[in-house]
């Protein structure tokens, strides 16, 4: 039984196809580069009758997510998409969506933040949502975007979780480049995996409840702790959702992906589309005899500490390529900081070399990563440990 149709899609379109195949009920969004084609495609699906959903036109991203919150509170399966400044404008509502425990799914074409204005890819927008209690997955291929959005509904709507979820991918580098993607010919098998379920607490005139009430100092803390537990539950639920996805559809991703890691002494760690380049570089360096492998962080929240620890068990050195800056941070690469914390808390003494790359979509070529590897190798040979991030390729 082949339920799949293989067609060329950008990651933006893959996100729109996933929303269609998840049979979403409501979409509210506001155009922003490079996300816009996602909702344009969704609008097209609605217009030509392939998707029976309500599209709410709004005047800003703040309103877009607000409309999604209202829709999701009624029990509707809700979708939106944004990038960069749009995500920043949603910021306040991110916390309201998660605090009200609404399983909204959002696609994000990652883009740099103003000022100066820059419409191209980096992950500053995603990292700024770090503590918003959204489940966060980062895809590396258009196929993974499609699959992750479907998995995101599975996890978000689980009664043990009920948290919103975002699926992030490179703006332009992925959002606007075509790849072959398997999409469902018919949404029935997808809906068997993510059946629609209206049993969660929701606004229903026959059974009225209140959303968004005040919680005074006697109560607020416990509601936040419920979110802590929900995010912990999401770890297990996402793991099972990915496994079941694999059994049903033949594709699964795990939390952390590794490439030629078994006998590697050094691993190059990254996320998003850059992982494809890292794998190419690993092949090139392997041919030259370097013992190097690649690691991709696919799930950012909940942070995959178990899988990360497993993947580095034989590795001595990590090169972490970060596409965002945490200005003035203990380490200025946000993912490197998570990785280092995870490992040090478990007394795993792996040297970590953090390189900042691809800011505002400054090109990161294979040659860049090869040079980064040799740069780090020299530091490793000399036994130099770094206490700061390295800003690769910045002009003086």
């Amino acid at each position, binding site marked *: 039984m082949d339920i799949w149709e293989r067609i060329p899609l950008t990651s933006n379109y893959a996100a729109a196809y996933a929303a269609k195949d998840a049979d979403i009920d409501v979409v509210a969004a506001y155009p922003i580069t490079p996300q816009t084609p996602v909702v344009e495609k969704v609008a097209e699906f609605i217009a030509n009758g392939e998707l029976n959903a309500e599209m709410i036109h709004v005047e800003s991203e703040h309103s877009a997510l607000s409309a999604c919150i209202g829709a999701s509170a009624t029990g509707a399966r809700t979708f939106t998409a944004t990038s960069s400044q749009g995500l920043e404008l949603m910021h306040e509502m991110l916390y309201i969506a998660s*605090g*009200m*425990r609404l399983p909204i799914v959002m696609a994000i074409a990652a883009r740099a933040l103003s000022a100066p204005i820059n419409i191209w890819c980096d992950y500053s927008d995603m990292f700024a949502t770090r503590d918003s209690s959204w489940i966060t997955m980062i895809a590396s291929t258009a196929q993974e975007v499609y699959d992750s959005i479907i998995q995101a509904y599975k996890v978000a709507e689980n009664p043990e979780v*009920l948290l919103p979820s975002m699926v992030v991918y490179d703006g332009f580098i992925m959002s606007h480049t075509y790849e072959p993607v398997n999409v469902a010919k018919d949404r029935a098998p997808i809906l068997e995996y993510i059946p629609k379920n209206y049993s969660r*607490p929701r606004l229903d005139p026959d059974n*009225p*409840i*209140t*959303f*968004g*009430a005040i*919680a005074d100092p*006697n*109560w607020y803390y*416990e*509601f936040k*702790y*419920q979110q802590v*537990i*929900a995010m912990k539950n999401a770890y297990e639920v996402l793991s099972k959702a990915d496994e079941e996805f694999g059994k049903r559809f033949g594709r699964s991703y795990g939390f952390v992906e590794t490439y030629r890691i078994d006998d590697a002494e050094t691993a190059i760690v990254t996320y998003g589309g850059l992982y494809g380049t890292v794998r190419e570089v690993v092949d090139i360096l392997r041919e030259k005899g370097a013992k190097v492998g690649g690691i991709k962080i696919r799930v950012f929240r909940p942070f995959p500490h178990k899988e990360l620890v497993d993947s580095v068990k034989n590795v001595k050195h990590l090169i972490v390529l970060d596409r965002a800056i945490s200005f003035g941070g203990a380490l200025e690469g946000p993912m490197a900081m998570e990785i280092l914390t995870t490992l040090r808390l478990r007394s795993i003494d792996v040297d970590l070399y953090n390189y900042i790359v691809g800011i505002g979509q400054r090109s990161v070529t294979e040659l860049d990563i090869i040079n980064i590897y040799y740069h780090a190798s020299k530091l490793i040979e000399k036994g130099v440990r770094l206490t700061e991030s390295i800003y690769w390729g910045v002009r003086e």
Partner: protein
Amino acid sequence: MSGEKRLSGWKSMSIGGMILEPGNFVKRPTGDWRIFRPIINHDKCIRCLICWIACPEPAINIMDKPYRTATGKEWKFSLEVDYNFCKGCGLCVEECPVKAIDFVEEVK
């Protein structure tokens, strides 16, 4: 942390602060926020119901209580403030066209 009344914990609380029981505020008097107390002078009151409309809570109730004023006028009903919920906003005092509501500081 060691209050006399034990509050329920995160496990038994509704998720996300949802209030699953509609109209449950009757169980939660909020009148102790009040600093000034409106007191209706039943002799002056002309039963126009402006205070009853103006009260945002609403904490002014129409009571089925006949009243005979000092000057001998007969009223079939009276207005009373429910002090369990009156927050002392003073709107009734402001709106009363005959100044029949006194606003008196709460004294413990």
